[in-house]
């Protein structure tokens, strides 16, 4: 039992619920900051950006759980569902801020989704995440059966790159940060594909 084993032993004593509580605590905090000037003089854009980026970060963390276990033996599998749901929570609020605070008009929403490529891509990424959030409960897993459930949840292989592309597309100029996220996601995806292929081969 090496370092990974000792880490796993410690992790087993940590309950999952704090991931939800601590993970989502910044959401009301961000709204408080936005309402009181803490996010600057354009709080709506700032809120959208902070929420979107946090959602992407948490989802990338959740996506890294399997490769991390394969590569290092550290097992965060117990926390993966919580990471996915917390990440989805951020993206959901991100979309709601865009709908209810930024645009405030269904006509603008429709025009934006149809005409703006980065909104189209972002909306596609969000819609791909919805069925995953809806089928996150144990009951849904039993209802679908593990094979179908796993196949459905591979939608995240599309949702995450689309989310990163959405991030890249909204930037002006050659900014490094969005490309770094896209590169990290593609790397994790490549690792995942290799693992799947290895599994199929054996």
């Amino acid at each position: 039992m090496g370092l990974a084993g000792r880490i796993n032993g410690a992790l087993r004593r940590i309950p999952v619920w704090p991931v939800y509580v601590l993970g989502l605590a910044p959401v009301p905090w961000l709204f408080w900051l936005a309402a009181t000037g803490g996010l600057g003089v354009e709080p709506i854009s700032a809120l959208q950006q902070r929420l979107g980026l946090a959602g992407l970060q948490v989802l990338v963390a959740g996506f890294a759980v399997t490769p991390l276990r394969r590569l290092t033996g550290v097992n965060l599998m117990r926390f993966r569902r919580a990471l996915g749901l917390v990440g989805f929570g951020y993206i959901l609020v991100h979309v709601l801020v865009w709908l209810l605070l930024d645009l405030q008009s269904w006509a603008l929403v429709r025009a934006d989704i149809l005409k703006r490529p980065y909104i189209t891509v972002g909306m596609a990424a969000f819609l791909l995440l919805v069925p995953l959030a809806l089928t996150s409960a144990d009951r849904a897993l039993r209802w679908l059966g593990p094979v179908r459930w796993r196949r459905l949840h591979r939608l995240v292989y599309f949702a995450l790159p689309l989310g990163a592309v959405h991030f890249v597309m909204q930037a002006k100029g050659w900014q490094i940060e969005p490309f770094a996220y896209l590169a990290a996601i593609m790397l994790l995806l490549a690792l995942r594909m290799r693992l799947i292929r290895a599994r199929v081969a054996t």
Partner: protein
Amino acid sequence: AALGLVAGPARADALVPNTWDEITSYNNFYEFGTGKDDPRNKAGRLTTDPWAVEIGGLVDRPGSYDLADILKGVSLEERIYRLRCVEAWSMVVPWVGFELADLLNRVGVQPSARYVAFQTLHRPAEMPGQRSAIIDWPYVEGLRLDEAMHPLTIMATGLYGRDLPNQNGAPIRLVVPWKYGFKSIKSVVRITLTADEPPTSWNLYAPREYGFYANVNPDVDHPRWSQATERRIGGGLFAPRQPTLMFNGYADEVAGLYAGMDLARFY
């Protein structure tokens, strides 16, 4: 012109300036970074004195003009202008400045000149954003000569009656109120009169997204977002977007400059 007067007096009632804090804390000035607060946080080290502007090209009296000399020959006045960013947000800014035409007339524009090119300071040691290739440095912009000579076009050296803060383009910047903000080039060190249309930074970066003219136009969308509405800075969390005005509300004064031009093509 008298102090404090506003072009287009019919709309003066709507022009309530944004606060000093709003105008100086929410800036696009990629020379200091791409975050809206980067300019305020990182522009403090910029040396703006001494400052000279190299005026050249098709002019009678080319040369390096010290800023103090430039200011000796002009009358400063307050101009309260709308500022509409291509990102679909807007402010109202009480600039202090002088008409660019006054400066151009002083150096003598030759008859063959048809455009004016501008260049921002390139000094990576003091402008940390210039150490990354966000766009090609130095930042360059340009106007057609008639746009540059228009009485609404000013060179600003201050706002709210004070010297221009570094993050707003100190010590001297262009302000063209009927065009998207990126045309109003900051911290100008070079002005060149040319016969041909000069290159402009955002047009070089993405020609499909940023044209040479960049006139505010609610009917011609940016390829990535609508230009029909804008968010007024300072409205808070629940303020609705407001409709964007043709030529940013200065159509009466400037529409004639573009008579007969297809504004969807020359965007």
